[in-house]
C-alpha cells in the first residue's frame, strides 16, 4: 500500500525513477534540466536561468522569464527531498514565492507529490506552516453580511480573514499545470482554527483548498531539518489554534455548572430559611446627644441549635444626620457576648441642579452562626447633626435564620476569577490574530 515503504535517502531518490527521468536543454540558456516526473509535469523551471518551460510543448516553449534583477529566493526545504507528513511520504517537487499585491507580504509554497495521493502544498508564512489539500467540493458562501462573510463546509463555519490579489514572485521545480506569465489570482482565506479554507480564482476557474496548521517542528522533523534552519515564527497565524480558546471552552462550561450549583444552593437556603422575627421594639432617644446609661432589652428566645441572626436598626428620622449604636448580643445563660456597632446615616441634597442622596435610614448586622437559647441586647447610642432636639424613636429588630446573599456573591466572585482571566487571555489572543485582517470582528467601527 502507499507510503509504507522505507524512506529512500535523498541521494538515492534523486536517481531512483531512472527509467522515467527526462532530460532536456533549457531553451534559453542551454543548461541541462531534468524532469523527474515527465508524465505528470507540464511546467519545469531551469535551475540556472530560471526560465519557466512548457515540457509538453515539442519546442520547450518558454512560458515565463524571470528578469535577472528579480532576487533569487532559496527554498528552506530542498527540492527532491522527501518527508513523512500526515502519515504519507511526500516529495518536494516545486517551490513558489507569492506576494499579496496590496500589502507586499510574501509567503512560500512547496508543492508536494505522492503518486498515490497526488499533490499537497506546504505553505510557510512568517514561520507558520500549513499543510494544504485541494478540495473538489465547493463550500457554501454566506454573504448576508458582507463584513461577516463566511464559508461553510461539512457543517463547519469558516470566517473570512483575508482577500486580495496574489502574484508569483519566484518559482523553482516542476509543476503539474502550465504556469502562466504574470499569473495572478484573487485569493480568499476563511478561518476556523486550526483549519483554513482558501479559494484562488483566476479568469478560468476557482480552486478551493483546505489548510491545516502544523507545528514547524513537525515540518523540521519530517524533512530532517534543524528548527533553526526554518524561519523564526512571528506573531499569530490566521488559523493557529489558540491555547486559550480550548481552555476557555472547558472552563466556561465548568463555570456555568458552578454558577448553577451555587445559585441552586442559595435558592435552597433562601427557601428553607425561617426568617423569623424574634424581637422588635422602639426606644426613644434625644438627638445630638449620647446615651447616659446602657439600654438593656427584654430577653428573647432563639430557636434551632445554630443559625444566623440579624440585628437591624431602623431610625426613620435621620435626615442629613446620623445615629450610632454600639452594643452586644448577650446569652442570658452563658453570658457569651457578641459585640457590634452600627451607624445609620442618611444625607441628601441638590448639587449643581442634580439631586443626590447617600446612605439610608436603616442598617443591620448579621451574625452568621449563633447557638439557640435566651438572649438580650445591651445598647449604647449617640446621634448628631439633627436640626432640633425633640425626642425621637429608633427601632431594633432581631430576626432569626434570615436569607443571606453575601456568601453567595463572594463564592461567585471567587469562582469567576479564573474564567474571567481565561476569557480575557482568549479574547486578547483573538484580537491579536485578527489584527492582521481587514475583517476583524474586534475592530472598532471607526477602523
Amino acid at each position, binding site marked *: 500500500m502507499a507510503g509504507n515503504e522505507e524512506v529512500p535517502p535523498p541521494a538515492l531518490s534523486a536517481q531512483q525513477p531512472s*527509467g522515467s527521468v527526462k532530460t532536456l536543454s533549457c531553451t534559453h540558456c542551454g543548461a541541462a534540466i531534468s524532469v523527474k516526473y*515527465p508524465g*505528470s509535469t507540464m511546467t519545469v523551471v531551469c535551475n540556472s536561468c530560471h526560465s519557466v518551460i512548457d515540457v509538453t510543448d515539442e519546442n520547450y516553449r518558454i512560458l515565463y522569464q524571470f528578469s535577472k534583477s528579480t532576487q533569487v529566493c532559496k527554498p528552506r526545504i530542498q527540492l527532491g527531498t522527501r518527508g513523512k507528513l500526515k502519515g504519507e511520504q511526500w516529495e518536494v517537487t516545486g517551490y513558489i514565492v507569492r506576494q499579496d499585491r496590496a500589502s507586499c507580504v510574501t509567503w512560500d509554497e512547496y508543492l508536494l507529490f505522492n503518486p*498515490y495521493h497526488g499533490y499537497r502544498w506546504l505553505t510557510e508564512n512568517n514561520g507558520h506552516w500549513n499543510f494544504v489539500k485541494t478540495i*473538489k*467540493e465547493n463550500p457554501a458562501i454566506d454573504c448576508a453580511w458582507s463584513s461577516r462573510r463566511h464559508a461553510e463546509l461539512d457543517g463547519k463555519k469558516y470566517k473570512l480573514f483575508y482577500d486580495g490579489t496574489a502574484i508569483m514572485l519566484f518559482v523553482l521545480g516542476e509543476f503539474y499545470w*502550465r504556469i502562466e506569465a504574470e499569473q495572478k489570482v484573487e485569493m480568499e482565506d476563511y478561518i476556523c482554527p486550526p483549519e483554513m479554507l482558501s479559494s484562488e480564482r483566476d479568469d478560468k476557474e476557482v480552486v478551493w483548498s483546505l489548510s491545516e496548521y502544523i507545528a514547524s517542528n513537525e515540518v523540521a522533523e519530517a524533512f530532517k531539518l534543524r528548527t533553526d534552519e526554518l524561519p523564526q515564527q512571528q506573531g499569530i497565524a490566521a488559523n493557529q489554534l489558540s491555547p486559550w480558546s480550548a481552555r476557555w471552552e472547558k472552563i466556561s462550561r465548568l463555570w456555568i455548572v458552578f454558577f448553577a450549583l451555587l445559585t441552586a444552593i442559595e435558592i435552597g437556603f433562601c427557601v428553607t430559611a425561617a426568617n423569623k422575627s424574634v424581637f422588635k421594639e422602639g426606644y426613644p432617644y434625644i438627638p445630638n446627644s449620647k446615651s447616659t446609661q446602657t439600654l438593656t432589652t427584654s430577653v428573647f428566645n432563639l430557636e434551632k441549635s445554630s443559625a444566623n441572626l440579624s440585628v437591624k436598626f431602623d431610625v426613620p428620622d435621620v435626615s442629613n444626620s446620623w445615629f450610632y449604636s454600639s452594643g452586644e448580643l448577650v446569652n442570658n445563660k452563658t453570658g457569651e457576648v457578641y459585640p457590634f456597632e452600627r451607624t445609620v446615616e442618611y444625607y441628601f441634597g441638590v448639587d449643581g441642579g442634580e439631586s443626590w442622596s447617600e446612605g439610608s435610614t436603616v442598617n443591620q448586622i448579621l451574625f452568621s452562626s449563633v447557638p439557640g437559647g435566651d438572649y438580650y441586647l445591651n445598647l449604647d447610642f449617640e446621634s448628631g447633626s439633627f436640626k432640633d432636639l425633640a425626642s425621637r424613636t429608633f427601632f431594633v429588630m432581631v430576626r432569626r435564620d434570615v436569607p443571606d446573599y453575601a456568601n453567595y456573591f463572594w463564592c461567585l466572585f471567587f469562582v469567576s476569577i479564573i474564567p474571567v482571566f481565561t476569557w480575557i487571555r482568549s479574547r486578547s489572543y483573538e484580537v491579536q490574530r485578527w489584527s492582521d485582517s481587514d475583517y476583524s470582528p474586534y475592530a472598532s467601527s471607526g477602523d
Partner: protein
Amino acid sequence: MLTLACPSCGAAEAFRSKASVFAVCSFCKSTLVRQDMDLSAVGKMSELQDDMTPLQIGCQGTYAGKRFELIGRLKVGYSDGFWNEWYALFADGSPGWLAEAQGFYAMCFEVATREIPSSNALTPGTNVRLTAQSVFQVEDIRQVKCLYSEGELPLFATQGRESTSVDLTGPDNGMATIEYAGSDVRVFSGSYQEFDDFNFNNLRKLDGW
C-alpha cells in the same frame, strides 16, 4: 468471457465485458475494433510517457461496498493537462468509470437523463439538474483528445479521438461528467473517494515509492 484472436499477431484477446467494442492488443499494441465475433485491427497504439499512475489493468478496488476490477484505460489530454479514465467491471458485471487525476479518484456510472444541455449553453458556475436528486455545478469545459488507451473499452478510443468534456461537482463529494463526442452525448455521475478507501490491490509497482 469472450476470447478472440488478435488479427495482427494472433494473441488471445479476452473481452470481459459484453459492452466492450474496442481493445488494444497487449502484445502488439494493435488497436482492435470488435463487431460481434469479428475483430479487426484499425491501427497501432504508440507508447506514452509514464505518468506515475499507481493504477493498472487488473487492479482491483472497492466502491460502495462492491468489488471492481480495472479492465481498460483511456488517457485524455487537454491544453493544460491530462487525466486517466479507467474502465471498471464490477463483480455483478456492471460497468463503471474510475476517473483519476492528480491523486483524485472518482467512480462514476452512466446515467440516463431526460434532457442534456448543449455544451454551448454551459459555462463554469452553471447549475445543471442531471438527475432527479441532485444539482451539479459546472467546474470546467475542456476540449480533450485521446492520448492513449489500453485494455478493453466500450468506445472507439483511438489516439486523437476528440470530445468535449464537462466536469461538474455536486454536494457530498459528488461529481458528474458530460461527454460530447460528435452526436454522441453521455452523462456520468458518481463521487470522489479517498485513495485509501478504495482498498486497492494489484497496484502498479512504483520504483522508490
